[in-house]
């Protein structure tokens, strides 16, 4: 089997050979590619912002990112969600200094320009005395996301006015992924969003979510602590391994691993939805740095015991102190360093696990293709990276809609 790639052309699709499971390592650390990602991926896609339950009332806000830039998601007086860029239009200073909270307006602490919950400029100190009322307020509101939509309480935003509606982007597959979490009841985010930075490329973090191959090794000490033998672990992840695999258009993915059911909405949102009830978002902060946000969901009507159980299962596993994820951070960083190797510049990363093992599932009546096969497989990573190339090669949304890959067995 070949182990090299054709010399890189200008097309990103040519930076990989998904049939043979080869991917150019450079895409995980190169700055030029990253700058284009900010435009073509994060500048176009619908990005998860936060959940309705985090900002129930007018003035409630939550601060997150679109690409590298700070945005404020706020509940306006009309009951809608606004996504505002956290930079004053006068001279660019920040208008909000908190991760979350409640406010009636956003005031810039430099000269006091003030914006309402819709981002409109409503206050200009000295407007009469100093500006002679010449400031055209309508033109100087805060920058905003181009579109904001939500699906079952999950608020998304896009910077691209030409992006199709959220549900088109999600497709049947994407919706199912969110449904799985939303169906846990009348869900809400438990107070406390963990924020964690790593010196790693955001895509390497994403790939890990459906990577059941690393579990037995990376987390061996955990199973040791849990006294489950390697044999049991392998049985679970290597043998009892057949099942549904969902590959959605535009790069959405779900494994259906019992106790995991890790779903990813392209590009950077993951839902852990079987044992856990968690959303992880991985914001890029440079080609070799990311910031991860962790949201835990629980049914508002859950009993105190149920609620505690959900939270404990999560805390015990996730975040920089979680007994599972403690082990992952270092691997993300090592892989990012390895991807930048010049000596190995021409040796692609290996994505050959489960090549061709996923078959189209017959007689599944869902409105999107479902595959079946080994669920411990790199089929997820191959699909995501192939879709990523579609996004990177497309000139605009029309181009992407026309030319994006359709799920097929591989």
């Amino acid at each position, binding site marked *: 089997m070949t182990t090299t790639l054709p010399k890189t052309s200008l097309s990103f699709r040519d930076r990989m050979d998904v049939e043979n499971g080869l991917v150019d390592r450079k895409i995980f650390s190169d700055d030029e590619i990253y700058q284009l990602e900010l435009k073509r991926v994060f500048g176009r896609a619908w990005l998860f912002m936060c959940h309705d339950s985090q900002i129930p009332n007018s003035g409630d806000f939550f601060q997150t990112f679109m690409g590298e830039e700070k945005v404020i998601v706020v509940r306006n007086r009309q009951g809608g969600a606004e996504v505002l860029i956290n930079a004053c239009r006068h001279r660019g200073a920040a208008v909000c200094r908190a991760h979350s909270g409640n406010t009636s307006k956003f005031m810039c602490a430099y000269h006091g320009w003030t914006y309402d919950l819709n981002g409109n400029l409503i206050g200009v100190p000295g407007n009469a005395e100093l500006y002679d009322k010449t400031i055209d307020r309508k033109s100087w509101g805060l920058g905003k996301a181009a579109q904001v939509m939500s699906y079952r309480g999950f608020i998304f935003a896009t910077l691209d006015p030409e992006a199709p509606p959220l549900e088109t982007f999600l497709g049947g597959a994407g919706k199912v992924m969110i449904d799985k979490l939303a169906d846990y009841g009348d869900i809400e985010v438990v107070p*406390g969003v963990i924020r964690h930075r790593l010196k790693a490329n955001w895509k390497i973090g994403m790939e890990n979510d459906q990577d059941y191959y690393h579990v037995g090794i990376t987390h*061996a*000490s955990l199973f040791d602590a849990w006294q489950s033998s390697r044999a049991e672990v392998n049985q679970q992840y290597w043998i009892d391994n057949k099942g549904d695999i969902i590959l959605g258009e535009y790069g959405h993915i779900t494994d259906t691993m019992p106790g995991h059911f890790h779903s990813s909405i392209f590009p950077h949102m993951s839902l852990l939805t079987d044992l856990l009830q968690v959303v992880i978002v991985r914001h890029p902060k440079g080609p070799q740095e990311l910031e991860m946000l962790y949201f835990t969901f629980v049914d508002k009507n859950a009993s105190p015991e149920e609620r505690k159980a959900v*939270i404990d299962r*999560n*805390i015990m596993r996730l975040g920089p*102190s979680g*007994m599972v994820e403690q082990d992952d951070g270092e691997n993300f960083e090592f892989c990012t360093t390895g991807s930048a190797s010049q000596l190995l510049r021409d040796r692609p990363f290996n994505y050959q696990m489960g090549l061709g093992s996923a078959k189209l599932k017959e007689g599944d009546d869902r409105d999107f293709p479902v595959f079946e096969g080994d669920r411990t497989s790199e089929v997820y990573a191959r699909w995501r990276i192939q879709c990523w190339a579609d996004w990177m090669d497309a000139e605009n949304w029309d181009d992407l809609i026309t030319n994006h890959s359709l799920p097929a067995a591989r």
Partner: protein
Amino acid sequence: MYLNAEAQNEIEQFFYEEAALLDEHRYSDWLKLFTEDCRYWMPIRQTRLATQMEDEFTKPGEIAFFDDDLPGLAKRVHKLESPYAWGESPRPRTRHMYHNIRAIAVEGAEITVSCNFVFYRSQLEDDVDWFVGRREDILRRVDGQLKIVWRSIFLDQTVIEAKNMNQFF
């Protein structure tokens, strides 16, 4: 309020012994310093508006970095002592430093002690992390020995920049 020199000295020495166990990676011995009914808790800290600081830390029962009882701690200890704990392979060079140790409340057999901590970690070649914050411990004397009943750890950063928080505080 403050304790007399001898009482203060006993508590300081107790913490210094504890730090030594951690920095020597003698986690099982460290575990023995906790009572059966202990709690080890590190809430999440969030950047909040000045007027809304009451929610700066998550509350018991909400999300936390650590919220362990003795069996939970025991699992973490077992893990750290496992031969497959790559994060301990090789062992990070850790240094726990406690400052401004103060008794802030005495209630029956239990005394509440506050201290500021600097937890320095150097790993592999050049990987350095600093964790800084305040700790609050409820100590109880159990047949002569001081033991930790409840430990609350209040980290100063709201965004964790370290690769992980494998070790104890």
